[in-house]
């Protein structure tokens, strides 16, 4: 397993963690952040997850601002509040439109801008600001669950195209007047270029050795390919430790996992394996241990 893809070999490195809710994305991305910070890289971990889960995982208050993680050197964290991000975004787009459009239309626009799509765009908008930040060596995005994430990632491409089309016609998008999006276009394009650049961005997929999880991961990998992004590595989480599976019930489940591990093998991507622990992955000490278990002692 080559870990260079996780390290800032040429300037800053962006790490995107992806996977369905509940596969262990937050724990493992925090462990990765901890591991990098311990190796001297100035690291920031950012989440847009609606649940304030970084506070939970680091066992300290993080919140909607860049916060230094206590008990760890070189490590900062931030929880983007998606509601707040959406509100900021909504106001930025609606304010110039308020004087121009009838109330009914504004009402529809407001609803559109409260939609899950708008929430993702808003969150992504905040992400991009971080992607233009050069005060860290590594920035980890503990992104929202897979479906969300992919739409989020795809949007800049769609929007760039859309902005291009609409402005030629002098038209107006459902999301707001073209002018208020125009400025964002270049920013979006820079972001998507950064994501496609293997020297700067890596995509880590978390999955579990189960039919649904593999199916979902496969679908996400294919969707990513459509925007020109290849997954860097997989982390297979939740593997039952063989020595604990003494009861035949768990022995049988372990065998089932073995079969799925073979299927994951066939995906032909580098992977790391993480066994299930008897405790939750919380607190800087545990995270440091998990980081070493996963990525090894040296960089």
């Amino acid at each position, binding site marked *: 397993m080559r870990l260079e893809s996780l390290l800032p070999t040429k300037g800053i490195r962006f790490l995107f963690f992806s996977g369905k809710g509940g596969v262990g994305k937050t724990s493992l991305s925090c462990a990765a952040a901890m591991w990098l910070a311990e190796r001297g890289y100035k690291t920031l971990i950012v989440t847009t997850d609606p649940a304030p889960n970084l506070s939970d995982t680091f066992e300290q208050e993080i919140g909607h601002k860049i916060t230094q993680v206590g008990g760890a050197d070189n490590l900062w964290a931030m929880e983007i509040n998606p509601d707040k991000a959406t509100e900021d975004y909504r106001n930025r787009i609606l304010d110039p439109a308020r004087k121009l459009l009838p109330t009914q239309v504004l009402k529809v626009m407001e609803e559109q801008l409260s939609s899950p799509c708008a929430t993702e765009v808003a969150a992504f908008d905040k992400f991009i600001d971080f992607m233009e930040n050069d005060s860290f060596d590594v920035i980890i995005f503990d992104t929202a669950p897979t479906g969300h994430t992919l739409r989020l990632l795809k949007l800049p491409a769609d929007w760039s195209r859309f902005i291009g089309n609409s402005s030629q016609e002098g038209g*107006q998008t459902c999301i707001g007047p073209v002018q208020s999006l125009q400025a964002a276009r270049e920013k979006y394009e820079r972001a998507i270029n950064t994501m496609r650049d293997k020297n700067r961005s890596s995509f880590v997929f978390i999955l579990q050795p189960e039919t649904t999880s593999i199916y979902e991961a496969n679908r996400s990998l294919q969707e990513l390919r459509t925007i020109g992004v290849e997954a860097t590595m997989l982390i297979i989480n939740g593997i039952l430790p063989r020595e604990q599976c003494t009861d035949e019930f768990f022995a049988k489940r372990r065998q089932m996992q073995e079969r799925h591990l073979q299927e994951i093998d066939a995906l032909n991507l580098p992977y790391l394996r993480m066994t299930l622990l008897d405790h939750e992955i919380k607190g800087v000490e545990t995270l440091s241990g998990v980081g070493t278990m996963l990525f090894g002692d040296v960089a």
Partner: protein
Amino acid sequence: MSNMIEDLLVPRNEARRVFVAGKGGVGKTSIACITAIWLSRRGVRTLLVTTDPAAHLSNVLGQKVCETPTQVNGMSALSAVNIEQGKAHEEYSARILEAAKGKYSVETLKAIEEELNSPCAQEMAAFDKFVDYILGSEYEVVVFDTAPTGHTMRLLKLPAAWSEQIELSGLVSSKTESIENVKEKFGKVMETMSDPLKTTIAFVVYPEATPIIEAWRASQELKTVGITTALVFANQVLPSEHCKNDFFKKRSQMQAQYLEEIKRRFNVPILRMPLLDSEILGVETLIEASEILYGGGLNA
């Protein structure tokens, strides 16, 4: 099987819709199938509506599920239908664009087309296909393996001209159907879905932090449009009789804390589905699973 849960799933005087909501990967399709199988084995005429990619449901049911309701092999009271989301979305987009053609400027048409490519439009398209099954009375129970979000429901309620023109005109399923009819139809859908005697909204979670919080947020959003959650399925609960060593005992205790959290947050009946030693694939395993989840007594 408590009476409380029976009341939420078994139809009394009129048809019932059961929506099985929850994030991908928590076992929505399995729970929906298990529930449909259980109902149909009690003699309740049941339709299972799925929007899951065909391959997956076909795996679970062990047979191909088509776009028209088809009887499930060996289950006389159970039919299944698959709404292929990609196709539903294509049809929906084509219909809206057809209706809009000639009425609007080129740029507006372009904007509509772009809007139709959004994930929100995809969700609307799938929901559009649900409507007939929600309002239909051919089955005693219709089980959906997914549920609309609060956002989709709010869009249906919006009175604005814009939504009428763009959304509703596309929802007119035949050329003779008027906007007024469509509005009336959605009024009925809203009324049906917010009536707990007609509709049961159930969330599937497994006893861990993230799935619980995600389900909670989705249920809160539905509440803003007057749709309340009636039931929670806690899936993948470790069977305590097999948790003999410290390792699994500790994991089981961890789950127990989250089961308490589910109770505390949702304050609705909770049905526990234990983790099984094999995957739930095929009608035989589904029947076994339904007896585990709801109890074996078919005449209960």
